[in-house]
């Protein structure tokens, strides 16, 4: 395979890439549907994050193993079938572990198939790297995705129900912001997080600009 990169080493970077620098949700804006739909409570967010991580890791491993046998023309279809297989497995597993959780996540477990993060990683990373490296990278991506889901889920549950993971935090006199657990809340909270990150990034850039400006002045 000429495509396979020559550098087989697994570095911290191959894990941490998905965690922060290329966070699938906050930076790449992929897989938005489950991000907004199931984050009305922190528990749902965590379950969705873990399920997606499992599919990412398993499909990444298999795609990487099989990449030399899959003809280029039908690779996307093959990846989709591999992903759909693992999604079917996790669908039945969640159904067996907790029916409540299964009902509250609804069709969104099955919709993991069309989550663009998974297909994107299979195409862009797993098919070009060794199995072990793909697994490490997929773990990082999954952790980043779970982190982003938790960011949204905890804020929405905190404001919309005054609770976190089902524990009441503010007492009975708290007036919940119902809108936060309803659909518009998802858009607004994710928008607010993106605003925050953009603002921080802009401030850092301005600071760096100011520092380099001072240096040139001093010279």
């Amino acid at each position: 395979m000429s495509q396979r990169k020559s550098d087989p080493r697994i570095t911290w970077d191959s894990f941490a890439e998905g965690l922060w620098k290329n966070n699938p949700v906050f930076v790449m804006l992929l897989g938005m549907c489950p991000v907004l739909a199931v984050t009305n409570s922190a528990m749902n967010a965590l379950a969705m994050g873990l399920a997606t991580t499992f599919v990412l890791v398993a499909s990444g491993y298999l795609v990487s193993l099989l990449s030399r046998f899959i003809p280029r023309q039908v690779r996307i279809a093959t990846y989709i079938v591999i992903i759909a297989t693992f999604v079917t497995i996790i669908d039945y597993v969640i159904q067996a572990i907790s029916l409540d959780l299964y009902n509250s996540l609804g069709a969104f477990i099955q919709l993991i198939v069309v989550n663009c993060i998974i297909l994107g990683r299979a195409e862009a990373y797993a098919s070009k790297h060794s199995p072990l490296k793909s697994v490490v990278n997929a773990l990082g991506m999954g952790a980043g995705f779970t982190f982003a889901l938790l960011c949204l889920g905890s804020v929405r549950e905190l404001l919309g129900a005054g609770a976190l993971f089902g524990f009441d935090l503010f007492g009975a006199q708290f007036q919940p912001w119902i809108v936060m657990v309803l659909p518009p809340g998802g858009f607004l909270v994710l928008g607010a997080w993106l605003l925050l990150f953009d603002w921080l990034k802009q401030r850092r850039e301005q600071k760096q600009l100011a520092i380099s400006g001072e240096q040139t002045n001093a010279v």
Partner: protein
Amino acid sequence: MQSDSLTFIFLNTVLANNFVLAMFLGLCPFLGVSGKLNTAVPMGIATMFVMLVSSVCAFAINKVLVALDIEFLRLIAYIAIIASAVQLVEMGLKKYSPSLFRSLGIFLPLITTNCAILGLALFQTFKEYNFSQSLVYAIGAGTGFFLAIALMAGLREKLLLSSLPSVTQGAALSLMLGGLLSLTFMGFAGLGSL
């Protein structure tokens, strides 16, 4: 109105349970292709068409799967159907309307990974709709998607002309707009039920 009458299903999926704004399906094209009105409109129409085709095919294949007692293959079968439906639409468009084919470009194959379409196939199975109900459900979902993406594109075109703080440009702004649109559509909630 009865909850399984065709008019009810249509209104419910277009307005009260809009696929994009209330059920969060198909957000990638909603955020990605809504920059300009004249790309958003063909995208909406193409999605509507694929929804219709794949809904009919999914209805048929589900009958086969149930008859053979292999429902665990449903997800894989549906995905394969949608991918081939998109391929079919692509070939048909290329032959009969090359200009539209060119203007849609890369967005056409990407409809395969639009979760609104797989979602539609799955939901019509869960709700056990019969053939005419699934057909109306698909038309409603397509119309809802078209409505949402066209409204969004109109809003974003207007916003290009207004002066905004530099931080808010980009994805954050689109999401805030989506939030407001979604809030507006919540006003229709009294019309229907899940």
